[in-house]
């Protein structure tokens, strides 16, 4: 049952992502991408990561994609004028498929880490996923968390520098 549900969601995700790549109109691509993100959020829930699912929707689908759609509107980009040459398409697709075959092969062939952590379903349901993530962020990964603040500041400054009206 669960596997069936997974397969359905996965199929939708793959189809939507294919539409991202194939759609001529950028807006349609963006909307398909948002669909893919929703599918992924669903999968996160299945993986007992509800917090990640939430921010996937809020940050990715909500913020980033809105920004992208906004820019597409702002620049008033129509459908792509022309296609790439069939040669380039062929090369791109075959390299991509090759990459897929390779990753598939090595994922099937390789072994996972044998060390199991302390976090299991029981703990997540008892303590709560958000709290676990929060604790981890503010203890073990405090420094990376702080670095993101600098990263966002740089992004803001950069965006302003590149697009403010008057120099």
């Amino acid at each position, binding site marked *: 049952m669960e596997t069936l549900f997974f397969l359905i969601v996965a199929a939708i995700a793959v189809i939507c992502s294919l539409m991202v790549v194939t759609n001529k109109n950028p807006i349609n691509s963006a909307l398909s991408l948002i669909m893919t993100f929703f599918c992924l959020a669903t999968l996160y829930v299945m993986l007992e990561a509800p917090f990640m699912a939430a921010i996937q929707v809020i940050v990715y689908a909500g913020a980033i994609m809105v920004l992208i759609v906004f820019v597409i509107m702002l620049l008033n980009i129509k459908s792509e004028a022309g296609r790439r040459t069939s040669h380039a398409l062929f090369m791109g697709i075959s390299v991509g498929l090759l990459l897929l075959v390779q*990753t598939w092969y*090595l*994922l099937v*062939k*390789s*072994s*996972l*880490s*044998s*060390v199991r*952590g302390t976090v299991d379903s029981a703990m997540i349901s008892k303590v709560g996923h958000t709290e676990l993530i*929060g*604790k981890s962020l*503010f*203890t*073990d*990964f*405090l*420094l*990376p968390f702080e*670095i*993101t603040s*600098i*990263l966002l*500041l*740089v*992004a803001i*400054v*950069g965006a*302003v*520098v*590149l697009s403010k009206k008057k*120099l």
Partner: protein
Amino acid sequence: MDTIAIPAINLAVIAPEVVLSVVAMALLLINVFVKSEQKGYLGYLSIAGILGTLLMLIPAWGSSVEGFSGTIIQDNFAIFFKVIFLISAAMSILITDKYLEREGCNQGEIYPLILFATVGMMLMASGTDLMTIFLGLEVLSVSLYVLAGFNRNNIKSNEAGLKYFLLGAFSTGFLLYGMALTYGATGTTKIAKIASYIAMNGVSSSNLMLVAGMILMSTGFAFKVAAAPFHMWTPDVYEGAPTPMTAFMSVGPKAAGFAAFARVLLVALPALKPEWSSLLWVLAVLTMTVGNITALYQQNIKRMLAYSSIAHAGYILVGFTAGNAVGTAGILFYMLSYAFMNIGAFAIIILVGKKGEENSNVSDYAGFGYRHPVLGIAFCIFLFSLAGIPPAAGFIGKFYLFSGAIQAGYIWLAVIGVLNSAASVYYYLRVMVFMYFKEPTEDFEWVKLTPAFVLCLLIAVIGVLVPGVLPGLFLELAQKAVLM
């Protein structure tokens, strides 16, 4: 509700980064109140900040402090690289102001952005967790995307920024995938724990997930250091970016890429040494050869130096392939001397250039050596050092890198390296031939030295000649800073 126990925070570990970030933020605020013609003062303030950071780093030499639950470390290796970053940032800032004035994009934000990029590089050098390294790399990259496209009225600069961004984001995908696979294979993102897990559980090259993780991470770093075949963005971005930023990009981020690359491979994955050293072997040969051979054809001097910087990444990869103490010390020494010689050369290019990046062809240097003898000699010193001709520092560095490779048994790699550096002389020499053996077509009267340029060139000349003639001290420091 139980409280969370925040672990003891050891600010001393990240003090240099904190200081530099605070200076950068303060500059952002000050910038609002500074008139457009006086933005140059922000440069001096940022240099003061860099000097302060340097002063904080020096006492830390010799100790190795971990902090923040093992996500960061301040050891000699990191400190040596941080000094390189700070020097390259300071020298680039010295030559920025005049250039921005000339090109008419005098925006004060460039200085905080350079400082933030430096913070990112410092985090890459001292990060001991894949997350820290990744975030440091992103802080650096995001700043660089902006810096490359900083001259937003110049179409070339736009294009450079956008190309860098698209390809950089693409390579980030591979880097992340590599990190994910490494995480899956070892169950952790901490570098020390990865190593101990591999050592304890006897995971080896038979675990394809780990090997693939190593390969994908390597491609990500190879993109950052511009190793072939992940180098193709370099010439375009270096040509289009504002020249001081090209100088900065060709040194700092490359060094940072090598720092993180070295820490990941040497500390986290020594068990895979046979695999990664053969990979690096191929990358080194490709990178040197492609860089040098393509440089032979270039007419634009910025583009020529871009290809030459690819070749130099190749030489450094030679030392990296060796993976021994001598090779690693060679990387450190070479990066340091490369900072001086390359930024020095770019400083001259800025001086000779005209508005709109005009006058940057090799043939535009005809007779320059006679119109400006002192600058001509300085340029020659930098070019000789890049070509690896004694007694400049570049020679000692190359010798060291190659002898590291020989000690590790990679004699053919060293041979190819020597062959390449012999070929590289040709295109450096071509510039000198134009400077001295061609009839001047220009009077070069617009070439005016400012005190900042004099300082930058002086530092560069000293930085090339002193380690070249008396490399003992620098090599000793480099040896104390290796990761083994």
